[in-house]
Structures are given as C-alpha cells and as structure tokens.
C-alpha cells in the first residue's frame, strides 16, 4: 500500500476489558458472556439515584500493569471524570472515565521495524449491550438492552498518529493482545468483544504535514484532509483489511477531487467494505467534569513496585532471547514466543535438556523441534490448547535425549510420542519398552534378514541382476517384521553383507 504521493497516517484506539471478578465501580460479577440478561446488575450499574461508585483495586492494578508493560509513565494520582452523553446503554447519563489525567501516559511498543508511541492508557467502564430492531406489525424501531456488561472494567489504549501502514497497525494490535494475554490482564478475545480496535485514518500529501505530539499539523497553506474512524472491527485480520480498504477509498476520493468529510464508518466483514455510519461535523461535546463521587487515589512508588512484580518476560524479549541466545530461526522463535503457555513449556524444556547436554543451542533446537513438530500437529488436530495437553517435562527431556543420542530414529521417536499423546500412555515407559525391544531385535536382526532373503527369492534375484529398487523392498520387509524398530541403515548393511 506504499504510495508515492500520499502518506497514510493512522492512530489506533484499543479498548480492552480487564479480567476482574467484580465490576469497575460495584461488586456485580463481570462474567456476562452467555449469561441470563440483566442478572449481573445493581443500583450502581443502573445509575439509580443515590448509588455511589467504589473503584475496584484489582482493575486499577491491571491498568497500571498494562502501562508498565508498555513503558508508560504512571501517574501518582488517579482522577476520574464524567463523560456525558445520552444513550440507553448508559443509564447514568455519563460514563466514568478519565479525561485530563490518564493513569498511564507516554509509552511505547516496539514492533519489528518501527516503534509505536502510546499517548495514554486510561481506566473507564464498559456500557450495556444494545441491539436494534424493527417491530413487526407496527414498524416501530426499538432497542433491547442487557445491562450485564454495563460497568465492566475497560481500559483504553491510545496511540499517537504514528502508524504508517495497515501491516504496522495489525502488528501493533497483535502485540497489544499478546501483552494482555501474557500478563493475564485480559483474554482479549475480539470475537467476544473483550478487545476492540478503532483505527482513525487520514491521507495527506507527502511533505505537506508534520506530526506534533498527538496532532497532525499542516505545513504552509496545505489544507489537511479530514480523518475517518472505523468501528465494528471483529478480528485482528479485519484491522488490516479495513484499513487497506479505507486507504484505497480515501485516495480515490482525493484523486477525484472530492472533499473528505470527518466521519465514522463501520467495517462490514461480509462485504469487505467500510460503510458510512455518522458524520462528525462538530467535535463531540461530552461536557467532561471531575467525578465528585470518587476521591483522588494516591499511587506510591511501593504500589507500582508491587504491581511490577507481575511483569513477566514479554514476548518481544523472549523472541530476542530465542534468536540471539538460543540461535533459533526467526520463524521458530516467533512461533514459540507467541503464546505464553507454549513459551513457558519451551523454556522449561530447554533448561532441563541443557542440564544434561551442556549445549544450549542444541538443547533449544531439540526442544523447538519437539514442540513445533509432533506436539503442535497433535494439539492442532485435537483442537486443544497446549496447557490442556498434560505434557510431562521429564518424559519429554528423556525423549529428546534419546533422539539426540541417535538411540532412536526420528520417525520411531515421533511414533512413540504420538502414541503416548493419543492413548495417554507414559512416554518414559514407551521408551523403556522400545529399548528392551531394540536390544533383543539387534541380535535378531541378522536372523530376520536371513529369513527375509529366504522368503523373497524373486526380489533377491532382481537385486543380484542389478535392480537396485529391490533393496528398498527387502528393507521394507525387514521393517515390517520389526514393526519399524530396525534401523534402516543397519538393515541395509546387513542385507548387503548377507547377499554377497
């Protein structure tokens, strides 16, 4: 989507529902997914007269944790504000949010080729779920509201307008989701609405504008093109697709000499297009005011130090370590660091194999092959997560060591691992059985080969007459009798010896 004439300027707002047991300002339970409607609701969520909000400590900790993970400055005082608007999903008539003093500010997220600057991360509350319908018969329009979601803790992460392509936007959103999941801040499932991405996009002529902090300003007499906000994005892929669509549409409009109007558009995933929702001719008038019902909350250095103990090694650091210390390929390093549970398993496995082998790159390569090979194939086939696969680290270490010492062939080793996973069999017992069998079969192998030669006269003659392919057939016969436990190379050399 590189363009010679125009720059693409993207800022991203990401909302994430944080993982708490109770709501942001009351003690109603948060888990509303597929629950009976309007059962997780109290006078606070309903905005009934006299109800007072009481902030949830854990929710604020998770907001600070997200800020620490993205290198933000953490405010030492927390202020809440009221953001007013009239809509049935918000019965109080205002959302408790943060206006001038967000909890976290000035952060950054490093991507593969660039750094995204974070303007702010602030704490707020989610609104109710509403669906819109038309009444059969009367043709009257109406909305149905479930207040279970109203008041669920929500953090908003806002970037500066520093993203320059749809692929950067996608990478950034993926990274944010990864951080949220790694730190158990949120499951960040976009399909369930636990994470929502809203890009705002504008197209400006190259060299005619500059970025000043959070603002895009014109140079000279240049008139900036208005920016477009996209909503209803239901997946990370849709972040990229919707931006690509919108950028092409905007460039076409500008090239046709049309004036771009500031507007909100909705992504229609089925049609793969953005659709006009509403124009924003005037900036929203939310009449922000300080929330008088919540006192200022002091955050000490001890508080942030305590919260920072939850900061575990994040995917970008892991990726770096896997490539530079473990000498893995970038591809393998990416695959292994993407999911926290996979990375934790991999890290443990490497340490334990290395304890025996005293060779870090080899240990890492073994562990990487073991996880990304048979184990991934198996969990993908079963559609389960790595944590529910019940893998035994000690067994996997023994398996890798056997493979490394060439005590067992790769295909046989994979077969054993598969068997242990499929039938929930003890992998170390399978390995022991294999060892017993193979020591017996080693003495038997010559006998088996002799037997195969006797029983396959035609193939033996073919081989002697110069048909090399017959050797493959004879090896196959031996493999069949030994149920694949014989070493093909060893079998071949015995065969050749016996045939001479």
């Amino acid at each position, binding site marked *: 989507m590189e363009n010679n004439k125009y720059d693409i300027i993207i800022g991203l707002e990401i909302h994430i529902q944080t993982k708490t047991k109770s709501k942001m300002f009351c003690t109603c339970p948060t888990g509303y997914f597929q629950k009976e409607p309007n059962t997780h609701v109290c006078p606070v969520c309903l905005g009934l007269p006299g109800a007072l909000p009481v902030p949830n400590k854990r929710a604020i900790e998770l907001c600070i944790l997200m800020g620490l993970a993205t290198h933000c400055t953490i405010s030492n005082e927390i202020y809440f504000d009221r953001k007013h608007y009239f809509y049935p999903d918000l019965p109080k008539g205002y959302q408790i949010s943060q206006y001038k003093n967000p909890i976290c500010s000035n952060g950054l997220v490093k991507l593969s080729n660039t750094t995204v600057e974070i303007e702010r991360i602030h704490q707020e509350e989610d609104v109710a779920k509403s669906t*819109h319908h038309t009444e059969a018969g009367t043709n009257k329009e109406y909305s149905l509201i479930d207040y279970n979601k109203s008041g669920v803790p929500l953090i908003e992460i806002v970037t500066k307008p520093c993203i320059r392509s749809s692929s950067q936007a996608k990478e950034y959103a993926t990274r944010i989701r990864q951080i949220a999941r790694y730190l158990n801040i949120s499951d960040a499932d976009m399909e369930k609405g636990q994470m929502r991405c809203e890009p705002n996009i504008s197209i400006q002529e190259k060299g005619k504008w500059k970025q000043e902090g959070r603002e895009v300003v014109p140079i000279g007499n240049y008139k900036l093109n208005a920016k477009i906000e996209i909503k209803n994005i239901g997946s990370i892929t849709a972040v990229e697709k919707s931006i690509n669509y919108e950028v092409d549409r905007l460039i076409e409009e500008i090239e046709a000499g049309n004036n771009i109007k500031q507007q909100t558009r909705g992504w229609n995933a089925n049609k793969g297009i953005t659709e006009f929702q509403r124009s924003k001719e005037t900036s929203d008038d939310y009449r922000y005011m300080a929330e008088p019902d919540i006192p200022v909350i002091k955050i000490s250095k001890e508080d942030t130090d305590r919260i920072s103990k939850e900061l575990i090694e994040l995917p970008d650091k892991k990726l770096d370590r896997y490539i530079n210390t473990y000498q893995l390929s970038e591809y393998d390093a990416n695959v292994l660091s993407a999911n926290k549970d996979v990375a934790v398993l991999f890290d443990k496995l490497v340490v334990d194999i290395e304890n025996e082998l005293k060779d870090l790159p080899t240990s890492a390569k073994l562990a990487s092959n073991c996880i990304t090979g048979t184990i991934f194939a198996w969990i993908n086939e079963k559609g389960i997560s790595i944590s529910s696969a019940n893998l035994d680290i000690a067994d996997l270490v023994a398996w890798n060591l056997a493979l490394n010492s060439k005590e067992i062939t790769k295909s046989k080793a994979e077969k054993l691992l598969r068997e242990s996973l499929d039938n929930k069999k003890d992998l170390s017992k399978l390995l022991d059985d294999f060892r017993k069998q193979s020591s017996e079969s080693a003495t038997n192998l010559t006998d088996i080969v002799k037997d195969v030669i006797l029983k396959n006269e035609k193939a033996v003659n073919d081989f002697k007459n110069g048909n090399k392919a017959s050797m493959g057939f004879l090896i196959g016969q031996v493999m069949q009798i030994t149920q694949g436990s014989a070493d093909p190379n060893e079998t071949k050399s015995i065969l050749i010896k016996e045939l001479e």
Partner: protein
Amino acid sequence: MKIDINFLKHMAKLSRIKLSQKELEKFTPQMKTILESVDVLQEVDTAGIKPMKKRVSFSDLREDIATISLTQEEVLRNANHTEMNLVKIYGKIF
C-alpha cells in the same frame, strides 16, 4: 461563554429536549442569569491553593470480590417495556 439562543439550542440538543422557539426565548435570559450568578465564583483568586478533594491511598480501594446482584425481576421492575428479559426502548436512537 456567550449565552444566547444558539447556546440554549445546543444544550437542549445534548439533553435530548425539544424546546419551542417561544420556550427558547423564555429560557435564554433565565439560563444567562443562573450561569452569571455561578460565574461569580470565577472572581475568587485561587492561585496556589490546592484542591480540597479528598485523597485516599491505593490500599483503601475496594478488593475485587463479586457479590450477588439484584434479581432480574427487580432490575426489570422499572422498565416500561421488556422483551425476553431485556429492557425495551422505543425510538430510533442512532
């Protein structure tokens, strides 16, 4: 802030209240008087004075424990219309 009939129209729009021309003309001077009397507060010199807002420590915040909410029947009791245990609101709200 200029308090004129356009200001009042804007306020009415934000509050989803329909006001007739006659009402707008009646309420504009009233609103002006109210806001001007509150405006007197702006004359007080507050330079160097810290806000009197109460401050609490982080540890004073509510622990994250969920309790039982209202019953569905209680929640829906005040709704004029319901459908499938959802609050039903007539009108185009986009």
